[in-house]
């Protein structure tokens, strides 16, 4: 950060490295043994102030687990988490390639952030409603939604449950606790608070969990959400996925150079946790803590998932235009899949051979599912959705003026 002087000058934050620079993130501390203690989930919110500025980690890079956040997870569950992450990545890769072949208009990958969605989902109940962004497809994979249906939605084909109304990746899977994703950023944080308030009003112990990137914390909706969640002690988890980049704007543009994003919650009197988002077990543990707090009437928790977006924002983006090409590799927190694999191998529950085989399995499985999905058409093929469905679901019942417009559209044909 630029040194302060006694002269006021307009300050515009710049990321430390741009294309052509050699990125060096040695200044970012990767705490090994300094994980803050795990308080009781129903503690006073002040007891989590420390957690907003430090970093909850469970796994060391050598696979050892340390500290009192180590979750009780069976090896099977850890292997399922690993497989879900690998499946998510395989699907992302496949869909990205298919977009490049013109099969769909658009796609968004979640590489590097798979632990945030998969471990988070694993720590919730399936009836806990999540309000994800476009980078939490891992929730659906973990909860067992149909990958083929996800793909069909991206292809806007005959198998698209949304009948072509939404762009790729903006899924809606109510039965899998996955709220319809909005393309307007940040808006869903406050809706999740409302959902949670309704759960509490109905005396249900269901909770809601909402996501935003660090960039959209600048939206008013984020602050509405913190305010209302605190005011009404709503049973929600408010997740900020700090992946460092909002398209081409680094997190400093969203006031990330000062206090942490988790610390935003302290002023609202919310419990606040900041977690290593590339550490599957830490994300699981933090989520579990926040979910218990919400479910038992302790109110909302703001969790900052500290991670890194390893790919472009979307298929329309080229990160080499604004950040060093090798920045994703030198980012000091490693890769969530590699780290969980190392841990599983370390505890004797996994090996390189099985891992390689599983990677191939995921690839083959995804390719197979994709072939099936594509049989139902692509955006540009003849088997896409019926144009007349565009008039449906604007309202529950078709109003007169839309009926007239359907007739006008028929004449156009």
């Amino acid at each position, binding site marked *: 950060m630029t040194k302060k002087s006694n002269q006021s000058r307009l300050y515009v934050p710049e990321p430390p490295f741009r294309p052509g620079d050699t990125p060096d993130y040695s200044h970012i501390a990767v705490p090994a043994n300094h994980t803050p203690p795990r308080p009781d989930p129903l503690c006073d919110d002040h007891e989590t102030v420390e957690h907003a500025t430090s970093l909850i980690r469970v796994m060391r890079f050598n696979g050892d687990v340390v500290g009192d956040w180590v979750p009780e997870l069976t090896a099977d569950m850890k292997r399922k988490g690993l497989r879900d992450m690998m499946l998510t990545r395989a699907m992302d890769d496949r869909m990205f390639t298919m977009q490049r*072949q013109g099969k769909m208009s658009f796609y968004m990958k979640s590489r590097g952030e798979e632990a945030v969605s998969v471990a988070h989902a694993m720590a919730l109940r399936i009836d806990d409603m999540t309000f994800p962004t476009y980078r939490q497809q891992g929730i659906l994979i973990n909860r067992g939604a149909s990958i083929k249906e996800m793909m069909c939605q991206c292809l806007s084909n005959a198998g698209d449950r949304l009948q072509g109304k939404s762009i790729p990746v903006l899924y809606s899977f109510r039965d899998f606790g996955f709220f319809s994703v909005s393309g307007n950023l940040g808006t869903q944080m406050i809706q999740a608070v409302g959902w949670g308030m309704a759960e509490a009003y109905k005396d249900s112990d269901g909770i809601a969990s909402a996501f935003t990137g660090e960039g959209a914390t600048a939206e008013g909706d984020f602050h509405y959400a913190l305010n209302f969640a605190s005011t009404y002690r709503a049973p929600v988890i408010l997740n900020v996925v700090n992946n460092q980049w909002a398209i081409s704007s680094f997190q400093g543009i969203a006031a990330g150079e000062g206090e942490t994003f988790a610390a935003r919650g302290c002023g609202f009197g919310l419990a606040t946790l900041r977690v290593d988002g590339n550490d599957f077990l830490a994300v699981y543990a933090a989520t579990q803590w926040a979910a218990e707090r919400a479910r038992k009437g302790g109110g909302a928790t703001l969790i900052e998932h500290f991670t890194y977006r390893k790919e472009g924002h979307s*298929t329309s983006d080229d990160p080499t235009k604004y950040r060093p090409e090798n920045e994703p590799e030198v980012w000091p927190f490693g890769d969530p899949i590699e780290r969980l694999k190392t841990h599983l191998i370390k505890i004797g529950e996994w090996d390189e051979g099985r891992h390689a085989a599983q990677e191939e399995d995921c690839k083959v499985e995804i390719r197979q599912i994709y072939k099936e999905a594509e049989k139902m058409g692509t955006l540009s093929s003849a088997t896409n959705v019926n144009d007349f469905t565009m008039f449906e679901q604007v309202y529950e019942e078709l109003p007169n003026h839309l009926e007239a417009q359907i007739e006008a559209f028929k004449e156009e044909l």
Partner: protein
Amino acid sequence: MGDYRYKLPDIGEGVVEAEITAWHVALGDSVEEDAPIADAMTDKATIELTAPVSGVIKMVACEEGDMLAVGADLVIFETEEDTEEDNAAETAPAVQAEAKPAGSSTYAYKLPDIGEGVVEAEITAWHVAVGDEVEEDAPIADAMTDKATIELTAPVAGIIRTVACEEGEMLAVGADLVVFDVEGEGNTAPAEVTPLSTAIVPAKPNPSSTPPPSPVKSTPSKPVSGKVLASPAVRFEAKEKGLDMFLAKATGKEGEITHADLALLEKSFAQEEGETRIKVIGLRRVIAQRMQESKRNIPHFTYVDEIDVTALEALRKRANEKRGEDKPKLTVLPFMIRALAVTLGDWPQFNARYLDEAGYVSQFSDLNLGIAAQTDNGLIVPVIKKAQALSIWQLAEEITRLAEGARTNKLGTDDLTGATTTLTSLGPLGGIVTTPVINRPEVAIFGPNKIRKKLFLEEGEIIERLVMNFSVSCDHRVIDGYDAAKMMQDMKRALEDPLFMFLS
């Protein structure tokens, strides 16, 4: 085996083309599905394009560094099996269409836009004819617009295959002026060009035959109807009732027609007591139309002179007394025709038609004289052909035949067409002066009036003479008043001293 076309995909948000910055395959390479094919760069991103199928590369689109449009074939694979996606048949071949063989092509030279809103030009002169071999830049034709006359020159060398029109005709900007047969590549598909055999080569019009059809104007100038102001409801009412709003008197504040105005108009069309309505149809309608056209288009002037027909009447009386059994009784009409034939021989501009749209006057050596005749159905005009060649007796017989035919509706087309000028006679009924309406496209019409006795003072003596007023109406566009007066003096002389009519 099948072909699979991999088209450059729409790689995001409105990108229409991409630069192919690198190829990872070459012609003949065998590639696996998902293997890298090429790198494409857009304004937004550089992306790697991978193989959607396995196969052998049989076509690559371009060189590295070339731009390629989204949707264009990037590569074509020859695939092992007929994949479902085998899409080769659905598009045009990737290879460029073979160049047309040299020598067989045509070049159409369209009338260029020769300035500021000109939409057509008159081709006033041709410097080439069909079959001519012309050099590039050689003069082709002269074109005249409101603004200028310009010379049009050949844009290419070649042989003239067709020319657009006759000299004097209007041609629309953008229409083919000439079509060349050229060496090498032309600018038209052969099919677009009119074959030589049916090229527009109209025969030269024979001055004595029917005039050529007036050339079709490229932009027909319709009379622009004026605007009527009225509310939609008033317009609707007028439409429903079939009322012509142009006929209504507008009393609205803004000059608009009101419902009340329509009601007045409707009332004015209402049948009054004692009124009988007769539909104007058939011959009546044709007459109405032709008279209206004549008066609308031709600026008439009428010249009248008084003619002493005492000698003529004496001659006619004697002729009738002396005629044989086989000869018809003579009226004054054959004598007037004779006088016209003699006079118009010297005044061909009165025995003529003016094709105003085509822009020329046709004069005729024969006097084909229309004789206006009244029938029960209305006016018809049978024609005495070559009247100058007929004797008085032949004229009288022809008049009788045509009059009878007109009454009994038995005249053929030939008897009713081809007039070069017309005589209309209301003489037997009385009247002092007529101002007849010209039978368009003729340029003159003659009208004798009733013969009556009149007293004259001659060398101190009061004498009685038979006189007749004789009218001629002329098209002032092509006949001057001076000529009409001179012609009428000749006519007067011929009728007043009738012997000479038979000596010429």
